[in-house]
């Protein structure tokens, strides 16, 4: 029994929790402004969830709350059965703000390696075990050939793979990806999605993937979560992406059109998502 406990401690694995993420009527606010109200959702380990909604609907806020950076003002959030701060080490995160990365004067390997237990004090020595993990993370995203290149020499798609490698460092059980498709041309979007899906299946990681358009993700998602007007709706595509659910969520008449394999969400005045394609400044 003690040996088992010791092994558990060594692999840093929490005894299996039923859910990766539980949002129990969580209300999230920035300052005094309520962003999301009473979000209720339970996400199982290994599930791929697409999170959609226009700018300002609270996608980033939701991810930051799950990471424990923004405690809910009401309700509760649990990560693998514990508080988000206690479980933060099980989560990999790909933040949306990454404009400055390409200007860093470092090579890719050192950039990825900086995230290896970077929260500890001391010198940024990576050690043999760290080097192995960095190497594995780079191989996982097929970026091992980029290791010695400068960050400034990378294309958008290559940079994205590198950031994903960094998020995968330390074998997370949950990946929170904030708009990984933004500023990628459609050619690269497909390969990034395929890559993330492959990693998710290979490692059994739960994925929360925020995006503006659900079509590129249709084949890979287990469920979707739609955010709008301070509320969230979660379920399968068939359950959530319907006239009734989305009209109620956005508080306006919304029509869902299925054209061949694509889904178009159309509001009274035109497609909802075209407007959302503008980026935040």
């Amino acid at each position, binding site marked *: 029994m003690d040996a088992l406990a010791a092994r558990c401690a060594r692999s840093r694995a929490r005894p299996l929790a039923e859910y990766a993420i539980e949002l129990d009527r969580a209300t999230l606010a920035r300052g005094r402004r309520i962003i999301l109200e009473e979000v209720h959702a339970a996400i199982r380990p290994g599930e791929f969830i697409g999170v959609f909604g226009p700018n300002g609907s609270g996608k980033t806020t939701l991810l930051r709350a799950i*990471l424990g*950076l923004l405690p809910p003002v009401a309700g509760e959030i649990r990560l693998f059965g514990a508080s988000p*701060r206690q479980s*933060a*080490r099980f*989560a990999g*995160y*790909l*933040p949306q*703000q990454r404009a400055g*990365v390409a200007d*860093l*004067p*470092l*090579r890719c390997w*050192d*950039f990825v*390696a*900086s*995230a290896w*237990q*970077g*929260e*500890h*004090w*001391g*010198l*940024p*020595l990576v050690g043999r075990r760290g080097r192995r993990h960095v190497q594995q993370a780079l191989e996982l995203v097929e970026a091992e050939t980029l290791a010695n290149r*400068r*960050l400034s*020499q990378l294309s958008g798609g290559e940079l994205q793979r590198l950031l994903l490698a*960094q*998020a995968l460092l330390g074998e997370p059980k949950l990946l929170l990806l904030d708009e990984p498709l933004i500023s990628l041309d459609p050619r690269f979007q497909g390969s990034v999605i395929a890559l993330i899906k492959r990693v998710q299946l290979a490692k059994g990681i739960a994925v929360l993937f925020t995006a503006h358009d659900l079509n590129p993700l249709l084949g890979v998602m287990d469920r979707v979560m739609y955010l709008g007007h301070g509320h969230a709706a979660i379920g399968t595509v068939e359950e959530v992406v319907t006239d009734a659910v989305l009209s109620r969520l956005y508080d306006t008449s919304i029509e869902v059109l299925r054209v061949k394999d694509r889904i178009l969400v159309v509001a009274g005045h035109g497609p909802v998502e075209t407007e959302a394609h503008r980026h935040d400044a």
Partner: protein
Amino acid sequence: MLEYDFMRTAFMAGGVAAVVAGAVGFFLVLRNLTFAGHALSHVGFAGATGSVLIGVAALWGLLAFTVAAAIAMGFLGDRLRNRDVAVGIVLSLALGLGVLFLYLYTTSAGAATAILFGNLLGVDRATLWSLFGLSAATVLALAVISRPLLFATLEPELAEAKGVSLRLVSVLFLIVVAVAVAETAQVVGILLVFALMVGPAAASQRLTSRLWPGLALAIVLAVSETWGGIALAYLTDCPTTFWIVLLSCLVYFASFVKLAPARARARFAG
């Protein structure tokens, strides 16, 4: 030239200060905080002249002011962004105070020049020992914070998610910068701290993209520029500060020359 006591002192004082300037400068450039280094040194002017006025070595007043300013800057953090005018006016006030203190301290005009442009050949034993102590403390502090500092510099949001306190790391680093600025000012003076803290680090980051070799190169460049400057000053009788700043400038621009063919090659390959 090493037979003179003041030359040996100059080489030692310049050497230890340059090690600190190179190492701290490396992270300063990486964090895009070079202006903070510049601003801290200007605030230090009031402290340096003030302490001369009350009969204490300039180093200590300088240190007190730069550290206080660093703590203020660290806690204000993002609120200082886009406040260039406010920061500039506070810096002007610091220089103005410095002028007032100099006016009140009328016995020596040389004091002002020494504070503004450095006086490495005039470093005394007490200052040398202070520099040794401060350098040891700075390098130790930098070693302790360097890991989360690097993480927070390269990927602040990820670092925050993993439990790094960005505010704490930022304040601690700025304090380290403040001490390094005070030390560097002993070598090249308050006005030219930039040349020794930013020049070698910026050149090193153009020459290599590897972390550890980059850090080592920044230190080696800072020390060689300083020692080279002292030697050239001995041989030519021009001020050490002039030679150090000239070498720093030459090395920085030479680092562009090296990069050009590499970029052309990359273009061909791509």
